[in-house]
């Protein structure tokens, strides 16, 4: 079970954004702790810490929270009402998402899944993209090949790649198998039913 901490200084926002039924579901999930204040000393006991951006910003705690969670390898979600651009940064360990996406059925269902499923990796991608999460990695796989001059069928020469790229490709290959640019593309289209 993955433990999640949600910190929002305006808890009514949760009920208003989610609606009565989803809010009740959120409250009923045993793996979720809700709070209105950030206790930096206690955040590492959670696998995912989701905090309203302005709350951290106003308290000048962003850097400290980032550093603590980054050191402990835990995920940070910063949600905010103003910005609709959902992004994943810090090598997949931090997500900047809109409040409407965070307080949504998709997210609550994902948190529910974390109660039982033994999900270890790519938590934020799975939260953001749901069943399409693999595409984020397949596209990255394709991009790494494309950037380094791969053709449709062939991988680029290894001397074209730097160490980081080799490591990234190795990890992707381990997870998704050795694939050509063309095969990755076909996998993506299959998932997207194109």
């Amino acid at each position: 079970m993955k433990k999640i901490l949600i910190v929002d200084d305006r808890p009514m926002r949760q009920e208003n954004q989610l609606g009565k039924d989803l809010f009740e579901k959120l409250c009923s999930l045993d793996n979720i702790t809700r709070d209105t204040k950030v206790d930096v000393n206690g955040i590492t006991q959670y696998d995912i810490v989701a905090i309203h951006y302005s709350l951290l910003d106003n308290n000048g705690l962003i850097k400290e929270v980032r550093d603590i969670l980054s050191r402990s390898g835990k995920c940070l979600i910063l949600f905010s009402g103003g910005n609709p651009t959902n992004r994943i940064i810090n090598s997949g360990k931090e997500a900047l998402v809109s409040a409407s996406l965070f307080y949504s059925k998709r997210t609550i269902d994902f948190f529910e899944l974390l109660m039982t499923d033994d999900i270890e990796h790519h938590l934020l991608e799975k939260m953001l993209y749901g069943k399409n999460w693999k595409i984020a990695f397949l596209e990255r796989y394709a991009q790494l090949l494309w950037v380094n001059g791969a053709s449709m069928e062939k991988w680029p020469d290894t001397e074209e790649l730097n160490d980081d790229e080799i490591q990234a490709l190795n990890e992707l290959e381990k997870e998704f198998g050795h694939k050509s640019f063309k095969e990755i593309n076909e996998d993506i289209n299959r998932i997207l039913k194109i």
Partner: protein
Amino acid sequence: MKILLLHNNNVPFSFISENWGDDIDLEIEIIKPSTDDNDYDVFVSHQLESIFSSNTFDLIILPYSFSEYNPIEYTGLIVAAHIRLTPEWNHSRKPILFVGSEETKQVAKLSEMGSMLFSPGVCSTRTNSLPNLIGGIKELSVEDITDSEFDDFLNRIQIPRPSNYATHHSIANEWAVMRWTNVIINWGEYEKPSIDSQTFTSMLYFKYLIAKEGVKERFSRNWKKNNVIAPKITGISGKTIAYIDDEYNKGWGSLFSKIFENSGAKLYIYDRFKGHKNRKELILDINEFVDSIDADCYLLDLRLHDDDFDKNKGKLSGHIIADHIKDPKINRARQVVIFSASDKVWNMKEEIQKIGAIDYVLKESPEANFTKEDSLKNFNEFIAAVKKACDLSYLKDYLKLLKGNTFETSFPLNNYIDLALLNNKNVLNSCVLNLNVFIEDNAENRFELTDGMNIVKKDANWKCVILNKIKLKRDSNKKIIAIECMRDIASEAKKYKRTDGWEDVKYDDSHKKERHMAKMIASLFYYYGLNNSDCARFFELRKERNTSAHEAHLTSYDFADLKAFFDDIIIKIIMKEESAKI
């Protein structure tokens, strides 16, 4: 050809390291936000502003995403949309070429902004070979897109609305304050308020709305020359305004501070929203603020707390506060102007009736496709509403004066105030009647004339000799046309010559009306200390009452005349009775 290539080390190395040929002037820029760049729109706007400020490009090339880690963020689409929707950068019509490993149909399926890829002037390539790319570019049309093609782009693109603008913080708030400050008001010699709108103006959604709204405004370039409006409201000098709006810090506070300062009025802003998590607590604190300021106008938003967005929570905070402002136990004549965003309350006319507000102003919303004329109308509605509230605030002063006083429950005075609050000329006759009734009842209940010799106050040890001191004049129909009093016969009698038509008032039973009038005038003159010209004003008001009542026509008095009468005559009566109590 001058080309701009934007990337974040996620395009083939040859694109950024090799020569593109003599006929291509290439500029390469990295788009890489830091972890502190939480707001991507602000980051992009700032970065591209500096790129485009000193350059003009024929073609812009960029990847679908600028993320090194996550290609399906599609921040490249966001950047391209900013370029299209920011006319100030002068590149909104330039061709855009996307490069990347992705198929456009994949991007279109995964990004809600993917429809942009199929709009005019946008093309894409999956080649990772520089010669192929250059070859393709040379075959491309690098003409700017036309106005109609741009409109086609606007119709195709979908820009998601930020969630906090979908609910509590309506976009109308920031739009309207900017619009009034920058477009409608001509600041001239006045200092323009500093409104921090960078976050808002950088917002892609805002740019999109401006672009859509701008379509409507291409035809009104001379608008500013023909429409000049100063940052002040005339006629509210010395008045006090209380402003209660959780959006005050979106620029409204700064704008209103300037407008009311320029108008000679005082502005108080409630600024303790953040200190109260609980709605009940917030409302109590706002009510305290309301009572601590004797405001002539309470500018009030309706949704002031998150709970107000829950339909099950009953009345909105603004309703509850308005009830308090209009509480008859405190002062029902305090003036409320509802100042709310347009998408918050559906039937505003019904709302103001429920609340007892004098007027309402809906903050204009760009989503309603406002033109400058609409914005001007909106600002003028605001001015008119505040002015109306301030014009009527004297009624709250009257109630304040009556509170705890001999006349607190006076039916004619309360009736007059309630009618005047309606601010409708159809009630003017009734207002005239009520002021008359008040003076008549007061004279009847508190004074007695004894044998035409004296006027006596029934509830006090006061008596004044009036024998031969009250004179009147009649017209040819024997109707009284003037009635005046003397304080000292010896010095004043010569003014009232018989040859000029003056005669003594008769007090016998065959002159009951004359005696009745004399009693009212005598009470005003001898006890309440009015002079003859103010007594004449009462006499005229009484005549007006008779004429308008019997001939059923609208009185020639307006609310300002009646206010002047109240101020000069009724208040003297009230004050005298109060001082007599002491």
